[in-house]
């Protein structure tokens, strides 16, 4: 050992001492715990109470201030339905497949608005969904009490998640920045038929269909039967949800680097 044992750490052959010394340590701890208990009386006191957060001073040894629920605790989600753009990214990024996109009232009649419904029986509170959310409308709160007598109540509908949002609990303040060299949506022009499916389903409306010149057919050549338009993706508005790639009937949109 690098450190020599001090006198109180050395065992004693005196039977009185070898019982008395550890007992003295325990008695000291007991006295300290009477002055300032290490536990809280849970249903009456709560970790999110301001007194656990504000007391940063050391009272009787135990550093307080740790011991509180911090703002970036990953508890029950809060969903702001108004800003949700139905991009599906939360459901795609969930490792436990506990998020399902369900239709909520609102949105234009052609495209139903879909918001996440979370099954807390499966959720592992990893926070990948709130990291993925491009609009910051799905966040995690400090709420941790989930017990319920019914299994069906573990499934939180978008409306129930919105109620959590309205309680104004502290939200997870951490926002991830998008990677600098993020891939873009690229087009394979010969395959495109100009069907407008990508622009129609894009949640941010960042795809516009631009007209392309119709080539003049040479004698004997047959032009492909298509609409002479091509999608152009606005990279700064794109949230990289990949909806356009999934709906493309000809698989002509794909991920790639512009560089």
């Amino acid at each position, binding site marked *: 050992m690098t450190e020599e044992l001090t006198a109180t750490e050395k065992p004693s052959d005196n039977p009185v001492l070898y019982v008395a010394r550890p007992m003295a340590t325990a008695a000291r701890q007991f006295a300290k715990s009477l002055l300032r208990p290490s536990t809280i009386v849970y249903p009456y006191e709560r970790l999110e109470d301001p007194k656990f957060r504000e007391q940063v001073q050391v009272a009787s040894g135990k550093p307080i201030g740790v011991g509180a629920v911090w703002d970036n605790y990953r508890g029950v989600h809060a969903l702001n339905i108004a800003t949700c753009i139905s991009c599906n990214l939360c459901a795609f990024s969930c490792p436990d497949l506990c998020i399902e996109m369900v239709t909520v009232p609102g949105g234009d009649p052609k495209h139903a608005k879909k918001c996440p419904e979370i099954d807390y029986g499966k959720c592992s509170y990893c926070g990948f969904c709130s990291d993925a959310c491009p609009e910051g409308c799905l966040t995690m709160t400090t709420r941790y009490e989930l017990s319920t007598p019914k299994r069906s109540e573990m499934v939180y509908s978008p409306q129930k998640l919105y109620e959590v949002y309205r309680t104004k609990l502290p939200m997870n303040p951490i926002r991830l920045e998008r990677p600098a060299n993020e891939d873009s949506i690229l087009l394979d022009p010969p395959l495109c038929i100009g069907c407008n499916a990508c622009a129609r389903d894009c949640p941010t409306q960042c795809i516009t269909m631009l007209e392309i010149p119709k080539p003049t057919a040479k004698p004997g050549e047959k032009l492909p039967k298509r609409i002479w338009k091509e999608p152009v993706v606005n990279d700064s508005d794109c949230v990289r949800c990949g909806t356009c*790639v999934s709906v493309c009937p000809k698989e002509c949109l794909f991920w790639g680097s512009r560089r």
Partner: protein
Amino acid sequence: MSDIWINMGPQHPMTHGLWNLRVRIEGELIRDVDPEVGYLHRGIEKISEDRHYNEVVTLMDRTCYVAGLSWEHLYMLAAEQALHIDPPERAQYLRVLCDEFQRIGSHIMWYAAFVQDIGLMSPFLYGMRDRDLVLDLFQSYTGARMTYEYMRVGGVRNDLPPGFTHQARKVLDWLTDRFHEYDQLCLGSTIFHKRCDNLGVLSGKDAIAYGVTGPMLRSAGVKRDLRKDRPYAVYDRLEFDVAVADGADVTGRYLVRMEELRQSVRILRQVLDWLDHHPGPVLADRVPRWLGAPYAPVGQEGYLLKRRFPTGVGFSSVEEPHGEAQAYVVNQGGEHPYRVKFRSPVYSNVSAARQYLVGYHVADIPPIMGSVDVCVGEVDR
């Protein structure tokens, strides 16, 4: 008197988890032992093949439930090697911060469980109380107390909250005093020495032959610590000593772990000083999109393979609180790892049970197995 086989486990206070120790006894004397593991097998290696590179961290926290961040670090080192990504310097320091706080948390947890095995109740409560401070610190910057999901390929998820280093230093000061009390309660008592000296002896030669690593190996006087021998992250820039004890018995393992707690505090003070003065990014900016939080949706695998992302193989080994853990990740260009393999240190430590249990009495099994620090989640994976 004839021999009989008895089962200690799968439900037994000695096991600290779900495993079974079959013991052949003659009276009170142990003649043979046969450890049986596998009750907690979840197929983490196979599940990893179906997850994106980042999503595997959710499994790593559940591999060893008292040292989740060490396992996250282990996997990330291998994955980054396979994907050719370098994490920024500050992220590496943050990972060392995680590792060492995790070592403190794990060793205090071991102390609490071990003293209860030898019949002490008060130190158990002290240990559990003090470990909570470490868990609270984890919660303040990772967002959870046990399942952290903090590390990402190419760095860590977020930076420290303001005021963290101040709190962390206060916790370290407080814990340093407690380590002194732990020693008073155990080493200061002759009863402890009568119970634990020359018990469960595993010589250094046997330990190396069985692949036993970690505090069990170092208690036999073998100076082997991956943080010194094969430095990863930024351990080569930090000053610390390798804790070694002689005797190769239960007391030796206690001494090694207590010394490691003090060395971890020493490392952490250096890391906190560095973090105070060197702000910077915590996530590499050259991370491919398909590793980020939003993933390429269904039907993208073909394109990703077509683009020919660089393939690679990653191997990493980390000095985990229980011993040397190793990971092997094969990247064949897709968005999931092709193969992931983990080496658990406790698996080897438990496999050598015949060497350090035979010849002792049945009542010696709890302290000896307690000194091994079994974490079944990691053995069975």
